[in-house]
């Protein structure tokens, strides 16, 4: 409930659009019921006056029937336009809001979610929040309003029928869908698990097709997949039955309501309290009123999913940024040596020290190699330097200016980073480069690519610099992508260079090209290189070994490092 309120608050600026959409869908629902009920009453009255039993002014209702038909058609069109427009406005608001919350957190606040599936999780969650208004809020609110309006109208004719109708609507629109959702929850969850197991097994058998053959397990795996497929179908059948039986029950509620309403109203008519033509009206009214709640089962079905999505999104958005900027901004340093003294840092008060008393000095223009097994604190060192994470104790300074006196943006303007994870955006190569220097000229872009030893390959693409990177358009090889990130670092031309496994995942030829490019890039820059590739270490002046957040004090021989598994 709290999450719903918060979502609604988020959508507050668009309340007028949302209300207009709901109002229109109420008009559609009511005009539909009115059309049928009025038609029933009209033909009954016409028949009676045809028999001479009553006098009847037929012009008004006949015109009203035609008017209602047109009203319903137009309102339906407008309703669809307005609700979709509102949905798109909300979608835009949601994205901007989420991005604004996420931006100060990255990457530190997201680290704990970095299970690879964070992104697909967020994606699915945002998608289901996109539909909150269209699939849940609008149908539920308009069904509630329409129901109240219909029952109020009916109570003028017959209180008893209004009660019966209300009871039926409550049952068909609310109670039964909720029950269906509840009894569908367990098979639904089982279905998700079965489907995941099936997908995993199928993926395994595709990837491991050779092994299955060699080990004579093709048929065994086939039987396994067959069994999982059967289990999936069994779960689905169960769900189809559950949903089918509840929707039959909803239908029963509608028809029985009508049946009882007719039985209740006949004696009233016979007693002369109501005109005979009212029976036709009541029968049509009750029958068609159930269209009002027809979209509720689907809404209830996605409600749980959407709330869970909202909870997860809010949880991410509510995290506190971990490295706060200073209140007063200091001028940028003028030298670019790096100093650390007894630096201590951990990711949470309960975690072990990720950096445990690091002291090091990198003179301006020097290059320092950092090696160590994974988890030894290499990346934490970069996180501290880039102000992605704060440290708890000790000192860190660039050019004599304490790190904490600088804002994150200031520090990052001094640093260029080439990392295995450096992201190339799904845009043109040009746009990816301009990120580093929005004002760069064509010549500067080419020069950066030339320095990174990738110019010829880029120019060989038919679209040259305007080639799309990533999913759409041409795909770059790993080595090309890495060299484009190096070109980006050339363009940024920052005094400090941080390299995080710059040759990881490259084949030998690309590795050599990247190494040459790095050599040029590192000229006159203060450089920190994290690596476990011996070739990269030929580029540095000095190497420190990290182990469990500390610098290994004495000289360490190569054999020992190899034995540690630090280096191959």
């Amino acid at each position, binding site marked *: 409930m709290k999450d719903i309120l918060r979502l609604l608050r988020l959508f507050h600026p668009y309340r007028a659009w949302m209300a207009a959409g709901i109002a229109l869908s109420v008009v559609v629902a009511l005009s539909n019921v009115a*059309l*049928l009920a009025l*038609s*029933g009453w009209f*033909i*009954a009255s*016409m*028949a009676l006056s045809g028999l001479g039993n009553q006098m009847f002014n*037929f012009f008004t209702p006949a015109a009203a*029937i035609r008017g209602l*038909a047109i009203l*319903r*058609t*137009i309102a339906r069109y407008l309703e*669809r*336009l307005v609700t979709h427009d509102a949905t798109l*406005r909300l*979608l*835009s608001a949601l*994205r*901007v809001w989420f991005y604004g919350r*996420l*931006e100060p957190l990255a990457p530190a606040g997201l680290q704990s979610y970095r299970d690879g599936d964070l992104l697909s999780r967020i994606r699915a969650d945002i998608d289901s929040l996109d539909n909150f208004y269209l699939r849940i809020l609008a149908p539920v609110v308009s069904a509630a309003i329409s129901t109240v309006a219909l029952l109020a109208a009916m109570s003028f004719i017959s209180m008893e029928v209004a009660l019966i109708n209300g009871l039926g609507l409550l049952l068909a629109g609310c109670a039964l869908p909720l029950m269906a959702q509840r009894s569908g929850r367990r098979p639904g969850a089982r279905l998700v698990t079965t489907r995941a197991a099936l997908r995993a097994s*199928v*993926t*395994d058998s*595709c990837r491991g*097709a*050779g*092994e299955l*053959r060699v*080990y*004579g*397990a*093709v048929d065994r795996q*086939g039987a396994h*997949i067959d069994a999982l497929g*059967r289990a999936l*179908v069994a779960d*689905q059948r169960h769900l189809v039955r559950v949903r*089918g*039986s509840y929707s039959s029950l909803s239908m*029963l509620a509608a*028809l029985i309501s009508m*049946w009882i309403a007719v*039985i209740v109203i006949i004696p009233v008519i016979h007693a002369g309290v109501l005109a*005979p033509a009212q*029976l*036709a009206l009541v029968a049509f009214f009750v029958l068609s009123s159930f269209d009002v709640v027809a979209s509720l089962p689907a809404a209830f079905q996605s409600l749980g999913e959407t709330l869970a999505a909202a909870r997860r999104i809010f949880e991410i958005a509510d995290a506190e940024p971990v490295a706060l900027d200073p209140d007063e901004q200091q001028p940028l340093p003028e030298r670019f040596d790096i100093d650390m003294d007894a630096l201590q840092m951990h990711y949470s008060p309960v975690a072990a020290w990720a950096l445990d008393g690091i002291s090091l000095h990198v003179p301006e223009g020097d290059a320092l190699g950092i090696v160590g097994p994974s988890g030894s604190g290499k990346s934490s060192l970069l996180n501290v330097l880039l102000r*992605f994470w704060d440290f708890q104790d000790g000192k860190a300074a660039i050019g004599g200016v304490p790190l904490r006196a600088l804002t994150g943006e200031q520090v*990052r303007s001094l640093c260029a980073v080439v990392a295995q*994870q450096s992201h190339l*955006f799904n845009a043109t190569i040009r746009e990816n480069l301009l990120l580093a220097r929005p004002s760069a000229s064509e010549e500067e872009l080419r020069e950066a690519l030339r320095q990174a030893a990738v110019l010829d390959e880029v120019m060989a693409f038919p679209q040259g610099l305007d080639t799309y990177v990533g999913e759409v358009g041409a795909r770059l090889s790993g080595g090309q992508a890495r060299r484009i990130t190096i070109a*980006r670092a050339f363009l940024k031309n920052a005094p400090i260079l941080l390299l995080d496994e710059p040759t990881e995942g490259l084949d*030998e030829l690309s590795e050599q090209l990247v190494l040459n490019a790095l050599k040029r890039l590192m000229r006159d820059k203060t450089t920190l290189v994290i690596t476990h590739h011996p070739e990269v*270490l*030929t580029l540095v002046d000095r190497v420190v070994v990290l182990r469990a957040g500390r610098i290994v004090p004495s000289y360490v021989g*190569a*054999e020992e490092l190899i034995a540690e598994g630090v280096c*191959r």
Partner: protein
Amino acid sequence: MTPGSRQRPSRSAARQQESWLRSQIGLIRLPLSLAVGAGTFAGMLMIAQAWFLAHVVNAVTIEGQNLAGVWRWLVPLLGIILARVLISGFVDSAAFAAAARVKQGLRSALYAHVSALGPAWMLDQRSGEVANTLVDGVEEIEKYYANYLPQSVLAALLPFAILVAAFPADWVSGLIFLVTAPLIPIFMIIIGKGAEALNQRQWRRLSRMSAHFFDVIEGLTTLKLFNASRREAEVVARISDEYRGSTMSVLRVAFLSSLVLEFFATVSIALAAVYIGFRLYYRELDFFSGFFVLLLAPEFYRPLRDMGAQYHARMAAIASAESILRLLQTPLPDRHANRMPLPPEQRLRIDFEGVSFSYDRDGQGVQDISFTLSQAECVALVGPSGAGKSTIGNLLLGFLAPQSGSIRINGVDLQDLDEAEWLRRVSWVPQKPTLFYGTVGDNIRLGAPEASEQAVHAAAAQAQADGFIARLVLDYETMLGDSGQGLSGGEIRRIALARAFLKDADVVILDEATGALDRPTATRVMDAVRQVASRSAVLFITHDLEAARMADRVITIERGRIVARANPREPGLRKDLHAGPATFEEVGL
């Protein structure tokens, strides 16, 4: 609705796919007819319900009867309501049973075909895509049989049944129905085609916009490093706003189609009501008939409108059918008709005689490879990555066939041997081993499901895997998630090694067996390999020169050719093998 990431199939291709989808109906005629039969029966009951209700209303309104006079209509009405509810609940189950049968058969057929296509074919595929076809692609088909097919038959049958009932009661309304009914599908087709194209384009645009947003989130760290992350917030806002603008201008037109539909359905009801009213007034019609027809009017248009909702199910199924058909129609590799058994000699001897093979996709491969490998020896293949070492392994496994030259096993061409019988004698650890969904123990037992617990433990110990397995929550009973989630690359490799050792094969092919292992572990693994090589023929593929030293012979491959053969025990080998800095000590640390 699927975002239009898939290409819209061309019309003739789509027709072919749909006719294939229809050809499956033969298998499910019974459940499908049951579903349609039940749906039609439920429709008849609906007509009967209207008939009885009209009697009740007629009796009370026109004849002035009280409740007592209409029970004879009310009681059967209740029975009809109950029957209708029961029957309509049955339609979905029957339709699902039909779809389930198709899905199950299709999945088995796909698995069998993919298995028969073999590992070499799989190398050229994105395994994610194949898996998607087998899981999601098959699921997409469900709606075609469970919803679209029965609905489309009912959309023709039910209005027809209603017409048959309505005409004798009131031929004017029947005529209104008859004239407007075909207009709805015609307009649906006319507008549907345009709207569908618009819709697809819109979905593509939406998925592009989403892709941009998530691309930005994924690259947030990079954006921050360039202090560009705040700039990007405006871009996100601008793009989604532009998207809204373009979408709304499309929707304004696209929704016109539903406007027309609604108009016909609603206005026809209104027209029928007004006409019936006036004809009642002039006594050209009796009230019972008029009311009966009016009750039928909304039901007449309902199945036609429901059909519109099934359009997407059909499109999605056709798109899936395309990828399913593409898989099923991939021709199987040629096999020799008569396969020879392995000559019953004691020791296996493998001869590569001038073997060449090149991949048609990029021309890479191996040329003129000749060497011999016998039981009780270990031959190491070394060389840079991409030199063709793994190709030689795949050739020996029989996954690839030499384009010239031959591989002879005790003198018989491998191509002529019975594949299953040959592979029974072979163990293999590929470069990227696969762990299957199941326990650690199951994974080690892959080639020997009946192996005893002691044998499994012994193999694990041999592969240096016993240590970390013992630290897992349930040791050998630990379930492995998605492709060994939670295990490191080295641990996955050691489980695969244990699997290979447990099989106790005559030929053992190890591709980068020591990859991702630290030096001491790698050394112990090497000892185990030596031990295996005292009985079996071991082909040891590696780029780790240190590890290659324990082989009996070392063959260096570069760009698909053998460039050196050496005995590792001879001095001076190191230089021959490799030019670049091979180990840490040469870096000068």
